[in-house]
């Protein structure tokens, strides 16, 4: 009932753990069998290891979470040698999320990942928390199309591009990525946002701005997924503030093929288990026998 195909790969359900909230899948494994997920995105990888940002990295807002992790990760090489073999033992799809500071970073990174047995690559041109590169590639259609085209040439795996809601025009960026050969799009990454410590008279985050996620961004993300789905013909994975089975169905009705779940895991670590049950119940109630019946019904 929940089976979903994304870029020709079968997923047992449309629920994917979003990049950055699930490490490399080991930690939550102490709590439940993480193979129940349709797929897992790795923490954002970069060619070289990164130690991330200093100062506050997490900040709670009224109905969201701001983060400024700064892509802390062990680097592509260490991921391939130590994390991936363990992840591949899980009975779920593994999606490697790749970030970068420069074109070369992305190209060398993608060449390395292409030789591994990850199921899919998600190109992150939307991280707002690194000083150079990162989101800069994803803000305009031209730069996004260029990097995606170059990576596409080197990537023989299903290739998804993760878009930034901070783009000048996310639909234009989406079309540029599609034209440059992306197999799928995932959106959205976090919204660039800000918090100020009134007593210290300083921004909460050392980088001044950080990325907002969680329930607060859901309606915004849904609008963007809808707008992009109206224009592109490749599959779209919806991301942003998804917390309930109904949220999942909303994103599907707006045109998403699958969804990713991030910040909602912080307030309910067993969410995927409950969401799978909840989806089945909701589908029965609403007399939906296959998700394809409702996909993109909102024009």
């Amino acid at each position: 009932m929940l089976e979903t195909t994304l870029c020709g790969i079968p997923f047992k359900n449309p629920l994917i753990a979003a990049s950055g909230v699930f490490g490399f899948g080991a930690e939550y494994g102490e709590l439940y069998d993480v193979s129940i997920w349709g797929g897992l995105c790795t923490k954002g990888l970069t060619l070289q290891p990164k130690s991330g940002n200093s100062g506050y990295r997490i900040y709670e807002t009224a109905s969201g979470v701001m983060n400024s992790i700064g892509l802390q990760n062990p680097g592509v090489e260490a991921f391939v040698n130590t994390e991936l073999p363990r992840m591949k033992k899980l009975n779920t799809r593994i999606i490697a999320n790749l970030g970068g500071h420069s074109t070369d970073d992305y190209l060398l990174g993608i060449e390395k990942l292409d030789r591994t047995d990850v199921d899919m690559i998600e190109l992150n041109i939307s991280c707002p928390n690194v000083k150079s590169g990162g989101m800069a590639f994803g803000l305009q259609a031209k730069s996004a199309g260029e990097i995606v085209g170059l990576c596409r040439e080197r990537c023989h795996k299903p290739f998804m591009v993760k878009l930034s809601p901070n783009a000048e025009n996310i639909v234009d960026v989406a079309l540029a990525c599609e034209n440059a050969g992306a197999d799928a799009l995932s959106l959205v990454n976090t919204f660039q946002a800000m918090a100020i410590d009134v007593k210290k008279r300083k921004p909460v985050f050392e980088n001044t701005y950080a990325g907002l996620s969680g329930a607060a961004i859901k309606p915004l993300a849904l609008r963007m997924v809808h707008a992009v789905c109206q224009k592109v013909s490749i599959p779209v994975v919806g991301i942003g503030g998804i917390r309930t089975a109904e949220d999942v169905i909303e994103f599907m009705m707006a045109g998403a093929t699958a969804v990713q779940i991030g910040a909602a895991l912080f307030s309910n670590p067993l969410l995927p288990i409950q969401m799978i049950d909840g989806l089945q119940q909701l589908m029965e109630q609403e007399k939906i026998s296959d998700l394809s019946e409702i996909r993109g019904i909102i024009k």
Partner: protein
Amino acid sequence: MEYFQTKVINHYQVGKGIFVMELVANGSRCRAGQFFMLKTADASRPLMRPISIYQATDNSVSFMYRISGQGTEELSHLKNNDTIFILGPLGNGFPCEKVSGRIALIGGGIGIAPLWFTAETLLKNTENEVDVYLGYRDELFALDHFVILDTDFFIATEYGDEGYHGLITDLFEPDHYDAVFACGPEPMMKAVFTMCKEVRTPLWISAERRMACGVGACLGCAFPTLNGVKRVCKDGPVFADKELCWES
């Protein structure tokens, strides 16, 4: 580690804005210095709150917390039988089995919370001798719990009139001990670190960082150490002096 819904069985105030809350849970696998992530049932907050284990038994786990914002304020409204969600036990805890002899526990402010259970654990080894140092701002709290322990006590209040008037570190003599555990404000722990380092007394501190996942998956609680960036929730909250990159 488990995530589950449970009930409050006892909840009372022990000082100005400070509460002890006891929950139904099997605490037999809890180690001193570990913590749980907590949230109320109607949690409007997007994040759970990390709180140290104050006491754990086979059928209950308790917490001592200070109201310091909306999340802890919400906790303080819970009554007996109310529902609460908890994730834990989390983190490494103090290395109670690795130390022996004369041991000092130093707590500052609400940082004294994990020390009751820690002292009790250490005293299970009858060869250990434990001294407890409690540093308060003004008003004393939870002292009636601590005094039932077979330990020596040192009390200081920075602005109050009880005990020694000043900082708890003024009373502390690091060369008397085989090991020291500290939990409290970072300036206090840094002072203890410098004092212990001078006389080579081994020290473990309990670090505090803002947390999102609590299990090591989000890298939100990064703590730089000499062995690289560690996660307070998973690799900590307790870190050994050898790892700390605090200047002294």
